[in-house]
């Protein structure tokens, strides 16, 4: 095998390893939702090409309010679903849409847009 082939294959394998590591192996650190005087754990979530933050850590047994702000017009993200909590909301562009739920059990619960292109996670501790 000529040297250039070996080099290309090595670079290719390195790239594959990088993709696996980047998308699947690294765990994102979560953001703790801030408790408010009203007893809610509140967190602002920016919807723009994804959810920022996309991992939200909350405490079990206390109501959570996620305020989604969608700052893009792509119709992909016009809806957010929290199937584990039976909630969904339409997100008009620019508006703040609160989604409230009560996490009872510990665990990791996904939220996503209708097509599952954007994903986020609520970690209940």
């Amino acid at each position, binding site marked *: 095998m000529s040297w250039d082939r070996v080099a*290309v294959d090595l670079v*290719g394998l390195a790239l*594959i390893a990088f993709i696996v590591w980047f998308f699947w192996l690294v765990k994102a650190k979560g953001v703790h939702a801030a408790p408010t005087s009203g007893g809610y754990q509140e967190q602002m979530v920016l919807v723009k090409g994804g959810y920022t933050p996309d991992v939200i850590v909350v405490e079990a047994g206390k109501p959570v309010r996620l305020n989604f702000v969608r700052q893009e017009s*792509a*119709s992909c993200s016009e809806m957010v679903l929290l*199937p584990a909590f039976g909630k969904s909301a339409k997100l008009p562009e620019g508006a703040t849409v609160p989604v409230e739920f009560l996490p009872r059990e510990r665990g990791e619960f996904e939220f996503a847009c209708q*097509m*599952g292109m*954007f*994903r986020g996670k609520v970690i209940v501790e």
Partner: protein
Amino acid sequence: MSLCAAPPGTQRAELVLSGLSCPACVRTVEEALRGVPGVESASLNLATAHAFVDYDPSRTSLVAIHDAIKKAGYRVGLGRARFRIKGMTCASCVTRIEGALKATPGVIRGTVSVGTEEAEVEYDLGATNLHTVKAAVASAGYPVIEGPPPSSPSAVDQEATAREHEYRTFMRQWWFGAAVGTFTMIMSYPWLFPGLGSLFPRDSHRLWYMWAGMGVASLAVMLYSGRHFFTGAWQALKHRSANMHTLIALGTGVAWIYSTIALLFPAMFPSREFADVYYDVTVVVIALVDLGLAMELKAKGRTSDAIKKLVGLQAKTARVLRDGRELDIPVEEVLVGDTVVVRPGEKIPVDGKVVEGTSAVDESMVTGESLPVEKQVGDEVIGATMNTTGAFRFVATKVGKDTALANIVRMVQDAQGSKVPIQRIVDVVSGYFTPSVAILAILGFMVWYTFGPEPRVVYGLIVAVTTLIIACPCALGMATPMSLTTGVGLGALNGILIRGGDALQSAEKLQTVILDKTGTITHGKPVLTDVVVGPGFDEATLLRLAGGVEKSSEHPLAAAIVEGAKAKGLALPDPSSFAAIPGHGIEATVEGRVLLLGNAKLMRDRKVALGDLEARAQQLADDGKTPMFAAIDGKPAGILAVADTVRADSLAAIQVLKSMALEVVMMTGDNERTGKAIARQVGIERVLAEVLPQDKAFNVQKLQLEGKRVAMVGDGINDAPALAQADVGFAIGTGTDVAIAASDITLIKGSLRGVVTAIQISRATMRNVYQNLTGAFIYNILGLPVALGILYPLFGILLSPLLAALAMSFSSVTVIANANRLKRWRPS
């Protein structure tokens, strides 16, 4: 609720409850209230439905008390209002207004949104009113804007405008890309065109400059037509995820960079044919995918037509009676308790109860029932339905967000946003999909570079780019939501509210349908069915006297006789004496004659010889009817038979259910004989008779233990536990009470035909989902290997990236088009 004298340190709240119907409820609520830490005492008045709670405000709050009542299954009479607020500029305003609201006695919840500049307030109707609430907000320094809040119709319009805007942007981007693309495609291979070939020969300076110009033009296409792919990919990357944007950006970006290097540093490549440019790939792929997205958007807009249609039903104005004058006001300003005037041909603005006049109302838009429904004093009318010929007045009972239509719209929106269980598998797959495609593309390049024919770099590049472009996570992601949205919308337009994807998928797989007899198969109201006349009497006399006597009775069967007599146009006399004989019947004097009405035992006790009437009575009883003997002046006068009658369309609906390979079972609290009689009439073989109300859920479970997937059809109130136990609970709704919690599917129109339609819609929708998913999977499973060049060694076929872009756009448009095909479904 009012706050008044109470022990020191505690406060007393008076709450108005609803849903209290029995003495047992009182205990439930009281115990629930006493269970709240901080509540000192709680007492309930069943007659007035008022609860008095003494609580320590430092330890608990009204909110907690309300929640406790809610958890116990009852509701507190709450008012809800939404209004706009002026001058909200910052987030701290929210805190201030919410603080002001919370400080207002009687306000349970107040939330303020900066985005919409709206406040949403829940308040206790007993303690405060909307005026006070608004005044509280104004006193915090924020004037309330009077007038209609931005209601849902405008929200739907906004969405449509936004969609239209996005569509136009995509189309502009497509036209720009297409224009540059046509030119680029021709100039990439000028030697293929006679005339051009001699103008731009290979390796000429002229061609080099032309290609350099194309490089700049394609950069412009990437920046204008393709910017959203690159920004989208970048945003996704920041979240460590990848999507369609990532793939398109990678594919087109790699092609552009390769071309530019080939153009600027041809010396880097071992031979001339390596140094060709592929700008056409970049430009045409971006243009085609933009076109695909535009078409997708158009098709998607149609998918949510159902909501638009429903919201569009809402009346804009209402004519209400205030201070004795008729006023035309916006429908948002109608209050509960207003008297609304409806003229012939007008739309009914809100839900209410008729207080004057009669008419027939076309409710097809809400219930799907095609025939106009007669309305008299006391009947419910549904907002957004159309009055036909008569004029009437009604008192508004539900307005704004609480109307049947608003509930329907909300339920449909929620359901459309839910997920079909099968989607969860798809979600897992699509989480790995995009990075896997990128890995495949790299592997493809490696294999072609290592083992492929010369020019290896070019083949590797084409394969990698084609692989990136052809993979379509969109088709996969859209397959179920698009069908679900269409299916749920389709249901709503046919008077069927499907709670979500779960219900839809379960309804498709049903094997057994249990029908509650009373109120589901039958009308649930006894009517006079047979009159047998004894020797020497005539029907009119018998009915007239019996009807006159029964006017004084409160027995439900009595009402049937009175109705029956009135229907024959008889004038009913008043009895001069009347005595109920418990367990036997009645004895009365009317028009100077003594009338006995009751069972056989009564007749035996009074020594009335029944003769052959007894055999007739037995026959009637065998048919599931309730016979009553009548004797006038001691002589047998005849039999009046009363029965709950079968709804007109029950038989047909049950036949269709059976033809759909569903086992139909009837459940009833009646005795076996009555149950079987009705079952015979509608063609049901299996009857579960003498089932006590509390055992209904258990009987559903028994059928489930036979290994069947069971649907329960009931009225949603008495049958709630059974509905919840069943795999799919169908609640047969009545008019305005559409949000029935225990059911998975609510039929607004009280007919079994709705069950048939609902199951048919579920089957059609799920079939559509499977078609879409299969299509999307097959497309990707076939497309990827072909793009990777698996056919090349055998047939010499290698896919062009341009064809891949076309196929990719086509696949997602197909998925949506297939979902839209569902809309053509019509109930059979």
